[in-house]
């Protein structure tokens, strides 16, 4: 990758980040439920950025840097555990693309996107798990009792809800890839012959 590619990927990362922030603000009203929905909305909305990026910068490392940078930014914002998660997401994304020539292959881009985003989305779980609702009772014994902790756990960490959250994410990512492909072709793909209204 050339310097220019890195710079452009970073700027696209900024775009993705800004979109996630905006969607994050919207999902804030959902409280802890929001943690799960948040990433799914992000997966849906950021897919066009990912598609355009792969098509315009079809080089080894593009995807990895895209995710890794987000990971570093999360770390600097205080979420250091995000760094390894994002690194893994980026690596798998690159692997799914496979061959160098496939950066322009919509099918491969889609697979890579869904896989990476699902790993990214898991950070929500990791986060809550890591934190351990139990940890809350320790820090705030007056505000968060063991019973409350148990209740919150029951709400979120049962296999049914986990499955729902995961499938929501997968569906969001798949819809995202469709949206990404659509927007890329409509606005960025120069090889498409367009029908004009004037002659």
């Amino acid at each position, binding site marked *: 990758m050339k310097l220019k590619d890195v710079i452009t990927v970073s700027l696209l990362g900024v775009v993705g980040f800004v979109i996630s922030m905006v969607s994050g603000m919207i999902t804030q009203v959902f*409280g802890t439920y929001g943690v799960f929905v948040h990433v799914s909305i992000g997966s849906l909305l950021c897919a066009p950025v990912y598609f355009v990026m792969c098509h315009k910068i079809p080089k080894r490392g593009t995807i990895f840097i895209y995710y890794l940078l987000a990971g570093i930014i999360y770390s600097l914002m205080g979420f250091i555990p995000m760094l390894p998660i994002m690194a893994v997401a980026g690596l798998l994304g690159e692997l799914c693309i496979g061959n160098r020539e496939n950066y322009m292959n919509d099918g491969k881009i889609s697979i890579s996107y869904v896989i990476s985003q699902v790993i990214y989305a898991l950070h929500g779980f990791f986060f809550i798990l890591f934190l351990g609702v139990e*940890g809350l009772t320790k820090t705030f014994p007056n505000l968060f009792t063991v019973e409350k902790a148990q209740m919150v756990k029951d709400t979120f960490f049962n296999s049914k809800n986990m499955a729902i959250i995961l499938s929501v994410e997968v569906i969001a990512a798949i819809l995202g890839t469709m949206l990404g492909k659509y927007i890329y072709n409509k606005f960025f793909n120069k090889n498409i012959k367009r029908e004009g209204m004037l002659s």
Partner: protein
Amino acid sequence: MFVDNVKRKIQIKPISIGVLMVIYTSIVFFSTMLVYWLMLLFSFVLLIAVKKKKSISLFIFYIILFGLISLVSSKCTISGWIGSIYTMGLIILKLFPLWTLAVILSSFGTSAIIYSLRSLQLPISLCIGVAIFFRFIPEYRAYLSEINEGLKTRNMGLSIIRPIHSLEIYLVPMIYKAFETGEILSCALITKGIEYDCKKTSYEDLSFTWKDYGIILVGLVFLGITIWKKL
């Protein structure tokens, strides 16, 4: 005129805040009330030292959030929707010491951050990427409002009936902007010799002083207390 104190008399270095952040991260999940309050207090002291104004608004935010949480805790039954928001609020409170550090980190100049990352042996391209994030996030926020303005002049806007169109009108200009900025910035950086192979220097003095060692020491003490309490 706005003067950034951190940058002028750079007192605390990004790296020491970074180290403290790692320590905080590793203990924040297990910390007892005592350590939590100590961490919170310490990060606020640091924030006051570098960004007084910001520390006031952050403090007010904390007090309000804490008050609300206490209120909900005493007045409402914690379940369902309220429970969910309540838990979220608690998590924010819990991570507050970390976020205060993040606020401090974000007040450093781009070059201080980039040089610090470089001294951690991170590849130059990643350092540039991170610096770009810091530099351009506010730029893109401003750009979003410019897009809004452009939409108004065209009598366009968000519409629930056309969700895809609503997304397009924001997303497409931003993506194009990224490519355009990428090109201009690359020209500027290349002609300013960013790719020149030599030992790079820093405009800011980033060598450690007793203050930095002090900060790390305090962090280690917090770590010590947490481990000792666990045992």
